């Protein structure tokens, strides 16, 4: 295992690694830690799963007449044609 602790890997280095912005030498050390550390493997897996889960917060569909309902609402509330 590299000299890095899980704390350093997770708190300080993980986002750089995931962004692909880590220098190659650091990347090797990072991956060496991950390979030798089952808790960090699970952590990385669930960190990535969190990102995939967040993407599901977007709606699959929108109301077809939404633009018209917005315009009608604003026209009614604004007191004049918008």
């Amino acid at each position: 295992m590299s000299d890095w602790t899980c704390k350093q890997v997770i708190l300080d280095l993980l986002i750089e690694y995931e962004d692909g912005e880590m220098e190659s030498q650091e990347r090797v050390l990072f991956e060496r830690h991950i390979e030798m550390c089952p808790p960090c493997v699970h952590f990385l897996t669930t960190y990535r799963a969190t990102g995939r889960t967040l993407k599901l917060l977007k709606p699959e569909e929108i109301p077809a007449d939404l633009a018209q309902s917005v315009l009608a609402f604003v026209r009614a509330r604004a007191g004049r044609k918008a």
Partner: protein
Amino acid sequence: MSRVGGEPAKAAPSGPVGPGAGAEPSDLDLVRGIKAGDEGAFEKMVQRYHTRVYSLSYGVLRNAEDAEEATQDTFLTLYRKIGTFDESKKFFSWFYRVALNQAYSRARRRRPALTVPIDDYLPKFASDGHLASADFSDWSPSIEDDAIARELAGRAGEFISELSPAYRDAIWMYDVEGMSTADVAETLEISIPALKSRLHRARLYVRERLSAISKLPAPDGAPK
């Protein structure tokens, strides 16, 4: 109903004057048109951004009716407050904050505001810097089930809404809405390194909360 598309239609670059014949007006062209009372400019702005605002509102509110009403309120605010928009800034950054505030304001009316201290939910480490045993559970395979994944997404949305705005807005804009780091940093008026720090802490928090509700026994060989 129609599918939500990806990015909104790209506008022409902002310029000091209106667009040429046939060119799509920029956001700034439309802003100036709305300020001048051009009703067509407002209609174009609605057409350009209504799906994006609805998507954001839905993510916060998790309810189609509330999301539609929040979208209406957002455009009403745009119509009434456009005079306060500083034209030296990027329009969508300003408008995104208007939309986000509308959605969270509506969410707070639905349930009491509760802001959790993010540090309470960051991963725990032993004194030697290694992960504590509680972090061994791997719930990631469960999101292969669409129903479970959507349930977890809903809970994630609730957890995010309990964050302070600094973290909440960063994770919404980047991870949910898919905005670029540059656009999010500009919207929040912070540096890119500061954004990444907030984003990472917010992700760690959401991961921790999702792990807590998806707790599985530690794998064989893991420290208890």
